[in-house]
């Protein structure tokens, strides 16, 4: 059976471009949402800790410890985002592999 390699590669090229666009745009949207959620949560915590400090439920030392714990959480969030970005890269690679397999299967009908 003759195989049209040009058609296969053209279909693969279009598929890979589409995948790259979707992967990147989804990742940017997710990262923005995560950052915004973290900022909102941080604001609420700082307000609550300040109230607890004023009514002496927390000591100054407690308050400082909690503020520093928030710094550690921000560092954790950066590591998590970096990990998620790495996962996206691997998902992209896996999608390319599936695209190659599916395209060849569909055009060659093995």
């Amino acid at each position, binding site marked *: 059976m003759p195989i049209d390699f040009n058609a296969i590669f053209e279909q693969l090229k279009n598929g890979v471009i589409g995948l790259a666009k979707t992967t990147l745009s989804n990742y940017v949207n997710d990262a923005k949402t995560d950052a915004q959620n973290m900022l909102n949560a941080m604001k609420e915590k700082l307000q609550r800790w300040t109230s607890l400090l004023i009514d002496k439920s927390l000591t100054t030392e407690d308050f400082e410890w909690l503020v520093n714990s928030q710094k550690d959480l921000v560092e954790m969030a950066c590591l998590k985002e970096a990990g998620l970005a790495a996962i996206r890269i691997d998902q992209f690679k896996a999608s390319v592999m599936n695209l190659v397999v599916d395209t*060849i299967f569909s055009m060659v009908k093995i």
Partner: protein
Amino acid sequence: MFRKPTAYLTAILFSTFLLFSQCRTISGFDQYAYTQGTALKVDAMNIMDKATKPYASQQAGIEDVTTRIEKAYEYEKHRPQNLFTVKMWEIVKNPDRNLFGGFIKRWKEKDTLSTAFINEAKIQVGEAFDMIVELESKKIKYNDSKVTSFLSTNQ
């Protein structure tokens, strides 16, 4: 070079499979690591609740949790391409930072801690564990069955 078109396609598929399976950027999903992360979060929250009592009276329970966290960390350290998770565990367990390790250090220094402080610290430490677990849960569950079946039937 190739006697039939399917041999050529098999070569393309085999190369693609090799290329993408050999150069992963981050480790794949690991059920054991995920289960450990969720279980340790519950244990850490439970022991933190007891910080209104003197440190010495809870020492056995504290050591049990910290030892299990060390074991989980060792497991993560030996998984390939797992740098981000390892760094996250290092922050959580470090006594000189302000998450679980730092909480235990503070408990030891002060002997008892206030309920208000414990409640707020639990939120912080809980979020840290959640981040580790969330990252693990989003890792890829690899399944190469389609490619391996194609390769085995076209050799």
